[in-house]
């Protein structure tokens, strides 16, 4: 029998086991590892969902989603202003999640694309759920008061005025015949705060907003005013004081 042969593989293994140089790992180590992986998966999923919800909140709150309806130039500006960093980090987390899930039997038995779509789907659904809660509005409030470290800057950028890209946002304070004035204040007291005069061409089919409306103006900045090619009245999602 092989076991009695000093050169045998079996004998060598048994010798090590009997000498105690090779030991069985306790069951709790494996349970802890699986539990740890599940915790990491859950955390990554929540972070990915949070990032997705922030993207949705940011597009909705800044009004940038409406740029898609402003023609080719609108799409170009939308792509420029899109929070790519958040999108890429979310994508990276989703890839990492897929890799972790494939460590489980049910994970590697499912084709890669199906897992990817599943993880993306769950992240988006969770992201939508988070985006309808008051979480982002609350965090936005903390950011405005400089009470939100790390995430404060991205939240402050949500309400930024992007005059150079042709996108202005503000509250209408006066309305004239073919013009109106908006005031922008994203509570950060920086250079994009102030009043802006918006000109609307007489032949343009743009309905002038009312005083007090929160508007998104798409148009190139001229000398001292903005020549509006599109004006969108937003619902007052955030109180602009």
């Amino acid at each position: 029998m092989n076991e009695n042969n000093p050169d045998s593989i079996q004998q060598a293994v048994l010798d090590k086991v009997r000498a105690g140089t090779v030991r069985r790992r306790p069951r709790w180590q494996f349970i802890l590892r699986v539990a740890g992986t599940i915790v990491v998966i859950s955390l990554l999923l929540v972070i990915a969902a949070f990032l997705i919800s922030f993207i949705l909140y940011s597009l909705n709150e800044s009004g940038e989603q409406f740029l898609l309806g402003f023609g080719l130039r609108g799409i170009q500006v939308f792509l420029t202003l899109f929070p790519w960093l958040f999108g890429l980090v979310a994508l990276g987390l989703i890839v990492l999640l897929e890799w972790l899930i494939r460590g489980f039997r049910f994970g590697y038995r499912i084709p890669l694309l199906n897992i990817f779509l599943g993880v993306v789907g769950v992240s988006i659904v969770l992201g939508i759920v988070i985006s309808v809660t008051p979480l982002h509005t609350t965090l936005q409030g903390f950011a405005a008061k400089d009470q939100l470290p790390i995430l404060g800057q991205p939240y402050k950028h949500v309400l930024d005025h992007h005059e150079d890209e042709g996108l202005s946002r503000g509250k209408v304070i006066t309305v004239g015949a073919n013009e109106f004035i908006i005031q922008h204040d994203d509570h950060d007291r920086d250079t994009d705060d102030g009043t802006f005069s918006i000109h609307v061409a007489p032949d343009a089919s743009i309905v002038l907003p009312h005083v007090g409306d929160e508007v998104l103006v798409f148009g190139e900045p001229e000398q001292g005013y903005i020549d509006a090619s599109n004006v969108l009245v937003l619902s007052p999602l955030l109180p602009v004081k």
Partner: protein
Amino acid sequence: MDPSDSTDEALAQRLQAGDEESLSLLMQRFEPKLMRYGRRFLEGQREDVLRQAVQDIFISAYQNIESFDPRQRFSPWIYRIAHNAFVDILRRRTKQPLYGIDFDQLISHPIHEDSFAAEKEQEEIRVLVEKGLGELAPAQREIIVLYYFEELSYKEIADVLHVPVSTVGVRLARARTTLKRTLPNSSELPL
């Protein structure tokens, strides 16, 4: 009941309970299989390296036996450990990636598991396949070895390679096509 009549899973469960005799029995059963698997998968590998690898596989199996779920089959579990050990050896031997980006794992494919051919035919297939193994890339060679020589099912091979069951079918079909191209008499056999 004589322990030597027990199933692999029952022996593994007894080993989990601390019965070292079960380890001995499991090694008796799997040493020839793992040596055979290694010889074919790692074609041209020195015998002493292979023996050391199989010894390491048993040690790893013993160390990790608590992670084995006795409700599952034991052979795919130990073949998985062997697969990892052999792939490590191949990685040291060649700088080329063994399993690069695998698009077969990306989407689902229809599964058509072949019913194993009659015993006589099976033997003929093995003899023929053996001749062509050297012509195959390691990844294709491995799947042929697991299916034709180790007689694992698609599902078990999927558990060894950690791929979807449908990917096993695609890889096997691809390996058969390569074999048919390299072996002149292969068209006469139901490969």
